[in-house]
């Protein structure tokens, strides 16, 4: 085993030890805790980059790397698997973690206790969920990340947060029980929970067991869709995200993507294993649910009065678009969906951070005022405006305004930033797959998705522009937000990565295509895991 093979477990161990160490130190040495947090997050970023580099090797045997804990064979022990998709998600998480930490360091990490440990444990849960190779460990890591997320959702306390978290916790506990029911049904029929071993056993199931297995998989799918906040199951999300503190909400942006990741992963293995006969997470349903999510979120965006909820609904648009895109299937669509996923996660996180900066210094009374202005206040405003003619927009508002504009362009998918490229790739694949190359006609589903994506872009423009005008162009009495350099640089970092995604779109898209192609096959993943020898199972040679 080389050092890069052991690196696979580092994304779980680093935050675990860092978080544990902080709990020991906390309350006495705030500076030390902060430094540990910074070091750990940077180390995570380095490890993620190293793993991604390693997964880009040409040799197909090296792209899927397997780590056996305790060197038990994969069907008995715990197994971690790092392939392109997993390392891509690791890198996304680590990048987001760095930006969020940068933002939190300015002031938020002093707003309550235990920000840093919770932050590290959330990263640990996320990384573990991306790396794990069996379903029960997936459940354990889900619980780790959810437990940390409950803490972060409550972080800063206050009535709105506690009441929103109450709903959040109940819904996720209920989803976890569904998860367990699904997992145990799968174990009861297939006799294993290792994803690769499952891939091999599914074809061997007899029809009655197959039916039960599919019921189990469907229940599991519902649990994942709750996490991905798909349409009928996602009502909790905007309230919780809007109530959560800004760094927590920005980090939560990647949490909905865990559900999406698992659907993609499990779907790829089982579809390949059964020769396409049994689509694990029925593709027609996934597409319909995705489209319904986009539609619901696009309408809700228009109706939302404050910017926090607006950002929450943009999370829903993003998860709906990715679900619908993978629901249609095909390597091209999956790779475009992955690009969209990276771009939209970073954008939404930047938007959450920005919203907090803009809304800072605003009291609940101001929110009520804003709503009343919306309803009645057009005339009042005009009268005021005449007195204020000639007052320049303060510099800090101008900077925030530019960042807000960039976020709006990214969210709506307008040129020139990566949001546009992502949507363009989706639509071009949609047309290319069925129309431009084949000479056929775009299917009804294709037209629906095309229409929904474009309309959701339009409603995003309308909703975000309205919110922006109300914030930046109306002269209210409120004081200017006090913004620190660190906070601005966190937003700038996220937006800068989106710019890099735009400029380097070619190579990144090729990487996404390779990733999607690897998923399409499924077989290399199963093969790599099963080929790991591990230690020979213990012989029964003990004396009686």
């Amino acid at each position, binding site marked *: 085993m080389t050092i890069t093979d052991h690196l696979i477990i580092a994304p779980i161990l680093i935050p675990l030890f860092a978080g544990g160490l902080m709990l020991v130190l906390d309350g006495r040495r705030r500076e030390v805790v902060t430094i540990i947090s910074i070091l750990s997050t940077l180390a995570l970023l380095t490890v993620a980059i190293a793993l991604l580099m390693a997964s880009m090797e040409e040799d197909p045997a090296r792209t899927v790397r397997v780590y056996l804990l305790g060197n038990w064979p994969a069907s008995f022990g715990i197994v971690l698997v790092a392939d392109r998709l997993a390392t891509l998600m690791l890198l996304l998480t680590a990048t987001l973690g760095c930006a969020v930490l940068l933002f939190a360091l300015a002031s938020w990490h002093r707003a309550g206790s235990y920000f840093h440990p919770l932050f590290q444990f959330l990263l640990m849960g996320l990384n573990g969920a991306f790396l794990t190779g069996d379903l029960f460990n997936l459940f*354990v890591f889900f619980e780790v990340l959810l437990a940390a997320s409950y803490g972060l959702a409550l972080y800063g306390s206050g*009535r709105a947060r506690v009441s929103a978290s109450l709903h959040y916790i*109940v819904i996720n506990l209920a989803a*976890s*029980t569904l998860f367990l*029911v699904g997992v*145990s049904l799968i174990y009861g029929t297939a006799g294993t929970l290792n994803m690769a071993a499952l891939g091999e056993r599914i074809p061997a199931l007899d029809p009655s067991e197959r039916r039960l297995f599919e019921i189990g998989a469907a229940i599991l799918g519902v649990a994942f869709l709750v996490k991905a906040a798909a349409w009928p199951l996602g009502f909790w999300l905007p309230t919780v995200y809007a109530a959560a503190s800004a760094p927590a909400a920005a980090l939560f942006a990647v949490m909905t993507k865990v559900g999406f990741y698992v659907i993609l992963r499990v779907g790829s293995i089982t579809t390949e294993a059964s020769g396409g006969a049994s689509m694990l997470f029925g593709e027609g349903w996934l597409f319909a649910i995705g489209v319904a999510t986009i539609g619901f979120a696009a309408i809700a965006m228009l109706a939302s009065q404050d910017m926090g909820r607006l950002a929450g609904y943009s999370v829903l648009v993003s998860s709906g678009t990715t679900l619908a895109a993978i629901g249609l299937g095909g390597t091209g669509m999956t790779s475009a969906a992955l690009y969209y996923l990276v771009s939209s996660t970073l954008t939404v996180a930047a938007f959450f951070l920005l919203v907090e900066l803009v809304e800072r210094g605003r009291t609940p009374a101001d929110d009520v005022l804003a709503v009343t202005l919306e309803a009645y206040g057009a005339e009042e405003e005009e009268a005021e405006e005449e007195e204020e003619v000639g007052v320049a927009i303060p510099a800090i508002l101008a900077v925030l305004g530019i960042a807000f504009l960039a976020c709006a362009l990214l969210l709506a998918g307008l040129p020139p930033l990566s949001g546009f490229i992502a949507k363009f790739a989706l639509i071009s694949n949609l047309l290319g797959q069925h129309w431009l190359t084949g000479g056929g006609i775009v299917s009804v589903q294709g037209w629906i998705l095309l229409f929904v994506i474009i309309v959701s872009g339009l409603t995003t423009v309308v909703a975000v522009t309205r919110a922006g005008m109300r914030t930046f162009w109306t002269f209210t009495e409120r004081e200017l937000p006090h913004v620190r350099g660190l906070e601005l640089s966190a937003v700038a970092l996220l937006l800068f990565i989106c710019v890099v995604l735009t400029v380097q779109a070619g190579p990144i898209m090729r990487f996404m295509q390779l990733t999607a192609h690897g998923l399409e096959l499924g077989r290399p993943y199963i093969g790599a895991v099963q080929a790991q020898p591990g230690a020979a199972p213990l012989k*029964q040679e003990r004396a009686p």
Partner: protein
Amino acid sequence: MELVISITIGVLGGSGLWLLLRPRTFQVIIGLSLISYAVNLFIFSMGRLRVGAPPVLLHPSVPGDLEHYTDPLPQALVLTAIVISFAMTALFLVVMLAARGLSGSDHVDSAERGP
């Protein structure tokens, strides 16, 4: 035995679900606990119900297969699930009390609805 276990799981799950949909936070937490009991029993039963079969290896002379032993894995899974659901219930209890303290109401929406 299968019938008894199924009825137990059904009754626990059904009453848990009913309580989960009630408006008081206390009812919700009891409902969640009942559902988690039902799920734990369900996981346990997925290893097939056997009487008098141990889950740990006894003696080298007894072959180590499922003819002579019960499947130990679901029991290990149940153990993990119990610990996790217990911890989550405790956490939920704290949040519930905080919500009660902050809003002065034990309604799940933190406010009474209607007259």
